[in-house]
């Protein structure tokens, strides 16, 4: 039963992702992206990454996706022309993408992964928190610095030229 749900979520994700990149309408792509992110969060759950799934939902969908939609709204004259997305180099790009996929697949299937059987943890939150402040303190601080930089950068970029 769980297996089938897993495959359903997987298919749902993949189809949504395909929709994202193949659709000509930008809003439809954005909504498809929403569904994709949802699907990914579901996959995280299957992977016992409860905290990450939550973060995904909150940050990715609630923050980034909203930002993207803002951007869409701000930069497109929706009332005007259909937002056509006739792709350039679609044929070659498709071929390259397929090829890339085949390549990754081959790598993945040929590698003898060392799968370990593990027990499901109760929750990962506490451990992640501990790790953040012990083992990964530096990356943690660095990433906050990065955020700061991004904040300032975005602010500077959006300033009005005068």
């Amino acid at each position, binding site marked *: 039963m769980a*297996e089938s749900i*897993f495959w359903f979520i*997987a298919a749902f*994700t*993949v189809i949504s*992702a395909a929709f*994202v*990149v193949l659709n000509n309408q*930008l809003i439809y*792509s954005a909504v498809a*992206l929403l569904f*994709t992110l949802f699907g990914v969060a579901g*996959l*995280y759950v*299957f*992977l*016992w*990454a409860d*905290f990450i799934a939550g973060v*995904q939902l909150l*940050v*990715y969908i609630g*923050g*980034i996706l909203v*930002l*993207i939609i803002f*951007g*869409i709204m701000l*930069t497109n004259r929706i009332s005007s022309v259909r*937002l056509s*997305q006739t*792709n*350039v*180099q679609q044929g070659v*790009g*498709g071929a*390259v*993408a397929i090829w*890339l*996929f085949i390549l*990754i*697949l081959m790598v*993945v*299937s040929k590698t003898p*992964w060392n*799968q*370990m059987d*593990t*027990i499901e943890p109760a929750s990962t939150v506490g451990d992640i928190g501990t790790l*953040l402040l012990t083992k990964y303190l530096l*990356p943690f601080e660095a*990433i906050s610095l*990065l*955020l700061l930089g*991004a*904040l300032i*950068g*975005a602010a500077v*970029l*959006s300033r009005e030229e005068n």
Partner: protein
Amino acid sequence: MDQLNNYLFIAAILFSLGVFGVMTRRNGIAVLMGVELILNAANINFIAFSRFGGMNLDGHIFGLIIIVLAAAEAAVALAIVINIYNNMNTINVDEASALKE
């Protein structure tokens, strides 16, 4: 569900689709959406490896960092896109080819 390869397979699909999107989409924001797909595929990979590698939470940390990174990058990218729109009145990436030889 309990096979690493499944997750990797899904991640591969997402990755390829993301690359396809980056390469072929005309709208700047659409390109950004492709980038998000790529990041998500990588994230799935990390979490999957973390789960099937002895529940090593390092993968989770990294996934967290990736999400933060994606957020910062999306913010800046959108700022740029809006700037381009203000300047050129279009965000067709084909138009932004001032570096053309």
